C-alpha cells in the first residue's frame, strides 16, 4: 500500500477508537440487568435505524472493501453479480425471519441453536449445527483479525507492526464488547456503517470525473480487455447463478445476523430495517465494482491474489489529487478498518453466546443462572480472542484456505431454518442426515481442491445433496411433537 497515514489521519483513527470504547462504557451504564437477553440481544430493544446499520455493518466485512474490488478487476463488469447476491440475502430472510422472530420472542431465544432445539426437539442436531457455526465463524473471525493487522501495518508505514495491530485492535473490541454487549456492538456498528457509506460516496464523487467519466473507462475496457466487458456466457453464467445461491443462502445463516432478528424491538421494526437493507447493495457493491473497473486502465499486470491490492493502490493514487481527496481516502480507509472491526465484534459476540449458552449452559454450567452464564460468556470472549490472536500471529499456521470454507459450511444449515420454518414434515433425523451429508460433500470437495465443479460451488453441490437427503428421508405430512 502506498498511502501512509500522517499525524492528522492517525489522530482521526485514535478519536474513532476512543469513541468506540466510550460507547461500550455508556452501554454498560445503561444496562438494566445482567441477563443473557440483555447482554447478547440488547434486551430485544433495537430500533429501526440501529438495526438497519448494525445488520449492514455486520454483513459487509473488510473482504467487501478489500477483496471485492480485486474480484471486479479480475472478472470485469460481470462482478455486477455482487449487487444481486447481496440482495438475495435479504430475500432469503423473507422465507423464514417472521416465523423465527415470533418463536424467538415467545420462547426467549438467545442463540440460533435455541430455534433448532425448539423446532426439532433434538439435542444431537443442535450440537451438530453449533459445531458447523463454530468452525465456520472461528475461521471468519480469524480472517478479520489477519485483515486488521495487515491494514494497520500498511497504514502506519510499518511503524505499527502486524502483531501490535492485531493485539491492540483485538483488545479495543474486547473492551467495548464485554462492557456493553450487543448494545455497544450495535451502536458502534452505526458509526462504522456511516463511515463506510460516507467514504464510498466521497471517493466516487472524486474518482469518476478524475478518470474521465464512466463512458471513457468502459470504452477503454472494450478496446483493450474486451473479455471483461463482453456479455457473459457459458461457465461464467453458471458460476453467477451458483454464487447467487451460495451467498444468498449462506450469508443469511450468519449466526450474528440471525441474532439480530431476535434483537429487533418489534416485528414492524425488523420489517422496516429489511425494507431499507435490500437497497444497500446498490450504494455499497456498485461503488466497489466501479473502483475495480476504474483500476483496469490505471494498473496493469496484477494477476491472481495480487489483484487484492487494487483498492489500496487506487486510493494511493487518488490521495495525491488534493487535500480533500486525501481526507476522503482517510475516511474510506478508516471506514474499511471499521467494517473489519464491526464484523469481528459481532462474530465474537455470537460465538461467545453459542459457547456459553448452548455448550457450557448444557454441560458444566447446567444449573447456573443468567448472570453466571453472562459472566462465563465474557470470559469465553477473552479466551477465544486470545487463542485466535495467537494463531493469527503465528506465520507458520495459515487458515486462509479454511476461511473460504465459511459459506460452504454455513449454507448446509439452510434446511434447518428455511425448511424448518415452512415445512412441518421435516424431522430431526432427516435434517441431521442432510446436514452431515452436505458438510461432508462441501468440505470434502473444497479440501480436495474442487472449490467449483463445472462452475458450481462445492457448497451449492453439498446443499443439493443435503436437501435431497432431507426430503427423501422425511414423511411428507409428519407433524412435529411440538405442534401436537
Amino acid at each position: 500500500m502506498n498511502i501512509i497515514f500522517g499525524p492528522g489521519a492517525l489522530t482521526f483513527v485514535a478519536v474513532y477508537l476512543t469513541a468506540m470504547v466510550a460507547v461500550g462504557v455508556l452501554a454498560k451504564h445503561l444496562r438494566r440487568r445482567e441477563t443473557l437477553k440483555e447482554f447478547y440481544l440488547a434486551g430485544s430493544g433495537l430500533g429501526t435505524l440501529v438495526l438497519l446499520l448494525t445488520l449492514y455493518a455486520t454483513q459487509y466485512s473488510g473482504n467487501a472493501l478489500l477483496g471485492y474490488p480485486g474480484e471486479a478487476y479480475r472478472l470485469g463488469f460481470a462482478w455486477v453479480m455482487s449487487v444481486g447476491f447481496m440482495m438475495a440475502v435479504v430475500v432469503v430472510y423473507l422465507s423464514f425471519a417472521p416465523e423465527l422472530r415470533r418463536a424467538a420472542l415467545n420462547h426467549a431465544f438467545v442463540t440460533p441453536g435455541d430455534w433448532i432445539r425448539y423446532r426439532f426437539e433434538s439435542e444431537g442436531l443442535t450440537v451438530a449445527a453449533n459445531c458447523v457455526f463454530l468452525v465456520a465463524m472461528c475461521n471468519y473471525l480469524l480472517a478479520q483479525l489477519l485483515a486488521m493487522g495487515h491494514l494497520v501495518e500498511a497504514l502506519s508505514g510499518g511503524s505499527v507492526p502486524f502483531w501490535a495491530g492485531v493485539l491492540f485492535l483485538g483488545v479495543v473490541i474486547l473492551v467495548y464488547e464485554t462492557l456493553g454487549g450487543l448494545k455497544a456492538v450495535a451502536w458502534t456498528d452505526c458509526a462504522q456503517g456511516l463511515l463506510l457509506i460516507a467514504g464510498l460516496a466521497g471517493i466516487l464523487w472524486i474518482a469518476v470525473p478524475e478518470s474521465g467519466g464512466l463512458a471513457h473507462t468502459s470504452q477503454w475496457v472494450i478496446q483493450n480487455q474486451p473479455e471483461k466487458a463482453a456479455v457473459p456466457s457459458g461457465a461464467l453464467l453458471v458460476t453467477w447463478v451458483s454464487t447467487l445461491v451460495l451467498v444468498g443462502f449462506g450469508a443469511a445463516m450468519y449466526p450474528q445476523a440471525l441474532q439480530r432478528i431476535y434483537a429487533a424491538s418489534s416485528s414492524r421494526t425488523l420489517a422496516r430495517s429489511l425494507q431499507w437493507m435490500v437497497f444497500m447493495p446498490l450504494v455499497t457493491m456498485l461503488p466497489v465494482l466501479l473502483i475495480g473497473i476504474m483500476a483496469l486502465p490505471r494498473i496493469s499486470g496484477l494477476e491472481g491474489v495480487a489483484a487484492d491490492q487494487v483498492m489500496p493502490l487506487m486510493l494511493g493514487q487518488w490521495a495525491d489529487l488534493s487535500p480533500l481527496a486525501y481526507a476522503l481516502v482517510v475516511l474510506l480507509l478508516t471506514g474499511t478498518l471499521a467494517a473489519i472491526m464491526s464484523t469481528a465484534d459481532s462474530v465474537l459476540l455470537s460465538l461467545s453466546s453459542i459457547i456459553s449458552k448452548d455448550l457450557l449452559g448444557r454441560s458444566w454450567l447446567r444449573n447456573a443462572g443468567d448472570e453466571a452464564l453472562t459472566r462465563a460468556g465474557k470470559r469465553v470472549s477473552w479466551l477465544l480472542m486470545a487463542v485466535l490472536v495467537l494463531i493469527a500471529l503465528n506465520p507458520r499456521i495459515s487458515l486462509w484456505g479454511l476461511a473460504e470454507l465459511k459459506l460452504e459450511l454455513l449454507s448446509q444449515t439452510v434446511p434447518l431454518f428455511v425448511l424448518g420454518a415452512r415445512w412441518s414434515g421435516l424431522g430431526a433425523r432427516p435434517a441431521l442426515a442432510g446436514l452431515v451429508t452436505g458438510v461432508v460433500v462441501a468440505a470434502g470437495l473444497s479440501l480436495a481442491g474442487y472449490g467449483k465443479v463445472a462452475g458450481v460451488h462445492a457448497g451449492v453441490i453439498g446443499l443439493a445433496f443435503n436437501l435431497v437427503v432431507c426430503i427423501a428421508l422425511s414423511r411428507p405430512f409428519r407433524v412435529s411433537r411440538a405442534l401436537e
Partner: protein
Amino acid sequence: MNRPWIWLIFLALFALSVPWYLPKSDQPPLWLGLPYWVVLSLLACLAIAIFTAWTIGRYWPGNDDGLP
C-alpha cells in the same frame, strides 16, 4: 409470505439479473456509460429491491408460536 406467486416473481427477477438471455457480444453498446447488459442487470436488481420492499410492506406478518 406464504403466497407462491411472490416467490415466482422473485425467481423471475433474479433470472433477469443474470444476462443469460442476451446475444453474445465483445463490443456491447454503452448505456449510461456502462455496457448495456450491466445496466439491464442493475435494473433487475433495482426491481428486486423495490419488489422486496413492497412485499414486506404488504405481506409481512405484523403480530408477534412461529411453528409451520
